[in-house]
């Protein structure tokens, strides 16, 4: 690996971590689309900042552009507050307007500088190592590494200091306000960090990848854990993995780095979406199937409990009486037998003591909805897990 390759992967990874942190809170606040809005509408800020500073990595440019991000959020909220349009419509109105101003500014004035629409949308990570930071004549590394590194340090520091405040205001805005943690301050703090991160990452990875890096790792992590700290950690891990692996995909395919990282992010999410142990599609489908079988089992047991007559309990009559197909009837019979809930003698089905107790308990729960008595049943049966 050449040093340029290492530097590119390092920049991509740092950007991924810096994006995953605010991204996690954006996902939990159901504000994923706002990151899309910010990433586009900071363009005029970048262009104006570039005219003033003539340097894409200048801190002033980053602050100016981040300010445009905040303006976006304020405008969206203002339009939404009038009650005339919904939030997503407001977002859809604001950011294209600001973005197009940026596009026109570039086309009119910046034709001969390193700033074009393609670079803005997709970034040029491959060129990042060429723009070096020199202090007193010594090369201390690529400029963008320093930029995103500083942003990451600020983000992590703020996260550690204000983790509790971020958590409570994300979960329960009303409580946060009543406890004296102004949700507005925390909201705009998060928006500021998201904007600064977006601007800092923008030059390296472009507008589209920034959104992907903020949302996809957090969305995948959300499906895997029920703990906020673990969600943050997982989002960070997914981000770094996609950054590094995406880089090598681009290397092998000789394709755009930003495009490859985004593709890997998409694949990571897809895999988690399908295979997450409890919230994944496959797990959910399996659970629904199981529940269906359990409902059948309960129906069957209840039928046995209510009928003493032999003809009602004859194996062959079961499918007629409760109107089931043969296969279904057999599945349910097997399940009941496996759990020692019924015995079959001479083709006559009878409830065992265990089966009888189980049925009473289950019916009692369904009627009263009191779930303290059925805690022990939750482990064996999906039906009782709410």
């Amino acid at each position, binding site marked *: 690996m050449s040093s340029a390759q290492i530097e590119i992967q390092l920049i991509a990874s740092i950007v991924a971590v810096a994006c995953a942190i605010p991204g996690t809170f954006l996902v939990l606040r159901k504000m994923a689309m706002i990151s899309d809005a910010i990433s586009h509408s900071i363009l005029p800020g970048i262009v104006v900042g570039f005219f003033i500073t003539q340097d894409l990595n200048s801190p002033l440019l980053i602050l100016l552009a981040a300010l445009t991000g905040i303006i976006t959020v304020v405008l969206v909220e203002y339009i939404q507050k009038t009650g005339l349009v919904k939030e997503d419509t407001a977002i859809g109105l604001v950011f294209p307007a600001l973005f197009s101003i940026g596009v026109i500014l570039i086309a009119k004035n910046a034709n001969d500088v390193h700033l074009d629409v393609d670079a803005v949308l997709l970034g040029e990570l491959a060129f990042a190592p060429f723009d070096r930071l020199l202090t007193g004549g010594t090369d201390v590394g690529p400029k963008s590494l320093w930029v995103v590194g500083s942003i990451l340090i600020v983000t992590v520091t703020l996260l550690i200091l204000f983790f509790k405040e971020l958590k409570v205001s994300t979960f329960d805005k009303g*409580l946060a306000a009543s406890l004296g943690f102004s949700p507005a301050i925390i909201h705009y703090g998060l928006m500021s960090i998201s904007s600064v991160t977006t601007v800092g990452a923008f030059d390296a990875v472009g507008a589209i990848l920034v959104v992907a890096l903020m949302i996809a790792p957090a969305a995948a992590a959300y499906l895997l*854990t*029920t*703990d906020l700290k673990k969600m943050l950690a997982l989002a960070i891990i997914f981000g770094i993995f996609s950054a590094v692996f995406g880089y090598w995909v681009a290397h092998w395919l000789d394709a755009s780095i930003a495009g490859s990282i985004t593709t890997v992010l998409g694949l990571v999410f897809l895999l988690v979406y399908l295979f997450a142990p409890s919230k994944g599609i496959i797990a959910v489908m399996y659970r629904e199937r199981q529940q269906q079988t359990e409902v059948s089992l309960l129906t069957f047991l209840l039928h046995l409990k209510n009928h003493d007559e032999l003809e009602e309990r004859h194996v062959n009559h079961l499918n007629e009486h409760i109107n089931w197909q043969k296969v279904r009837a057999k599945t349910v019979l097997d399940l009941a037998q496996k759990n020692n809930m019924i015995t079959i003698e001479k083709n006559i089905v009878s409830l065992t003591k265990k089966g009888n107790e189980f049925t009473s308990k289950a019916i009692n729960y369904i009627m009263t909805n009191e779930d303290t008595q059925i805690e022990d049943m939750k482990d064996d049966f999906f039906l009782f897990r709410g």
Partner: protein
Amino acid sequence: MSKIAVKVDDLTVAYNYKPVLWDIDLEIPEGVLMAIVGPNGAGKSTLIKSILGILKPIAGSVSIYGKPYTKQRQLVAYVPQKGSVDWDFPTTALDVVLMGTYGSLGWIKRPGQKEKKAALEALEKVGMLAFKGRQISQLSGGQQQRIFLARALVQNASIYFMDEPFQGVDATTEIAIINILKELRKAGKTVIVVHHDLQTVPEYFDWVTFLNVKKIATGPVKDIFNDDNLTKTYGINYKVSIQE
């Protein structure tokens, strides 16, 4: 006459310039268990939220024991409507209760052993200790409401505001909650509850406020909980038999 815990003067609150609360004057004496009743859209939740500074009134003022709310936060605990939060949030029952301690900690400081102990005690009080590690979406509606109550208890406040704590809970939980509220009153606390079920007002509460954009009446249940005030508040002829 006992001390006044909460005093509201000329409070007017508007959403988009349409008043939802109009010129409310209200004095809540210390140590009462008070219901706020009124039809949908009467501004019951808005009243609580304005007292707590969550909403900004366009006129009027609020004081808690004679001082503005911002100076008296430590004295007040708030239980929002259960539906106001996302129960799929990645956190546990214990962690939600711990949030009640954040107010006394202030900015930046994290909860430690002392706070954790208090949270566990509050969970025990509402009968939810066994569920401390449970992810909150895995709790039933009644259990979620108990967690919210525990979160308020852990604040160890003097005044408790609760927004429809009985909404969507089973009968057992309702009794458990009202018993805890009655205990709080016995301990000298003031409890203010947005309430929907008029039938249970005389049984649960000793003080009541009728609200419908304007304040209709406020006072002891035995004196003012009558058909006249109910009719004024709900706009139709109401007949409620009060059990003695």
